[in-house]
């Protein structure tokens, strides 16, 4: 298991907003249909459709505006991408067929990679724990996930939800936190992961050089 996934702060590299925008665009262009991001007409259908836009620092439409204004660093520091629930309503409604949900994912990845994640959200910590668990066991373990998430600074939630959590546990709806349940093909998963991580890096290096 690579140690980097256990760290709460990943490689923090301070980049200028222009550099960030360039890297972001090259990553988005590499996604299937990624070039459509250039076609945004600022109509705001995405923001109007978004179920959680009210809780975002910047609405989805503003991401595209910020990108053009060279202020992507603000978007990355905001909670916007981490409030995306991945419901895909913006994606199906976008008149320009921009895959906005996929772009939200790209913002999350970029934020994690360069240490720009919003201080106001713990969702990035949740993502890291989730990945650590699935890499180690091959499947998710909800008990371990929630326990580690709460221990990472959500004591209030832990106390508030303890009674309901206990009910679920005693009804057999939560696995043992330290469970021996593992996928037999963990080694296959590791080989797939290592190969694809390498290929992804090569692909990105090529895109960024372009």
């Amino acid at each position, binding site marked *: 298991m690579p140690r980097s996934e256990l760290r709460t702060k990943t490689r923090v590299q301070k980049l200028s907003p222009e550099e960030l925008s360039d890297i972001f665009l090259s990553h988005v262009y590499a*996604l*299937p249909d990624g070039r459509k991001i250039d076609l945004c007409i600022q109509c705001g259908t995405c923001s109007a459709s978004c*179920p*959680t836009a009210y*809780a975002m620092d910047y609405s989805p439409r503003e991401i595209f505006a910020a990108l053009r204004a060279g202020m992507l660093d603000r978007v990355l520091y905001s909670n916007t991408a*981490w*409030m*995306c*629930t*991945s*419901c*895909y*309503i913006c*994606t*199906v409604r976008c008149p320009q067929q921009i*895959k906005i*949900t996929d772009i939200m*994912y*790209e913002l*999350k*990845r970029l934020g*994690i990679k360069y240490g720009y994640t919003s201080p106001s*959200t*713990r*969702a*990035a910590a*949740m*993502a890291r724990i*989730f*990945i650590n668990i*699935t890499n180690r066991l*091959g*499947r*998710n373990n*909800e008990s371990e996930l*929630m326990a580690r998430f709460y221990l990472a600074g959500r004591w209030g*939630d832990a106390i508030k*939800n303890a009674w309901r959590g206990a*009910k*679920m546990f005693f*009804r*057999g*709806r*939560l*696995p043992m936190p330290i469970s021996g349940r593992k*996928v*037999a*093909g963990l080694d*296959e*998963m590791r*080989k*797939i*992961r*290592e*190969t*694809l*991580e390498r*290929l*992804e890096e090569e*692909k990105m290096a090529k895109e960024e050089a372009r």
Partner: protein
Amino acid sequence: MELLYYPGCSVEYTAKMYDTSARAVCKELDVELKELPDWNCCGATTYMSVHELVSHGNSARNLALARREGADQMVTVCPACYITLYKTNEYFQTNPEFADLIRQGLQAAGLDYDGGLRIRHLVDVLVNTVGLDEVEKRVTKPLNGLKVAAYHGCMLTRPFGGFDSEERPVILDRITRSLGAEVVDYPLTAKCCGGMVTNTESSKTIPVVARLLREAKYNGADCIAVACPLCHMNLDFYQPEVNQYLGGDYTIPIVYFTQLMGLAFGIPKEKLGFGLELVSADKLVSRYA
């Protein structure tokens, strides 16, 4: 009919009533669910937030295993698993560059995938392959008088459409009606429940959950029928917070559509996983079981 079945992580524990009721209902309809051996986590919405290609790689291992079993379709019950596997499969079939990368990853692990699989959701299989006529034939205890808000959520039909409208799906309405129950008007049927964000930032997404519960109550529903473990979790678990937020009683039982089917088929309630939910569905169940 034998079908390869991908259960998914939530269905093993948090949503085990979905799994048990789906298996019981399928057995009744002569659909044999054969579990995919040694399946791994599809990555859901979370893995994708950190590594894109590796997330697809994990998902693709399941596709490769399914082909090794000789299957040409695989069914899931969890919409997050469904859409994750579907998305990997779709990109694999339509984007040669992507397919090439994924195959290199799989081959490093001694696996391979040819793109020959079709990913399906159980509700699609039940309505479009088995057919509502067959479902109606098995109904021994029609759910007469039960008012149901059929809640589709987001990932059942978004973003690919697949078997129903992305904006206003009706497939759950149809299945619920075939059981003899009444479907109440529920315009928010495909509005998001907050997904994983409700688990991480519940204080911020309680309004999202609240409007779903309020709408169902307002339209006179006795229960909300869902097809997604995360929808069930969010709507069931956070009702105390919603009541506090709205300042009223919006308590309403949340059930899986497969549990309702089982009830109408006369399957004993223990075999449908009733009683495992937090907001009790006892009153509703005792009317029909």
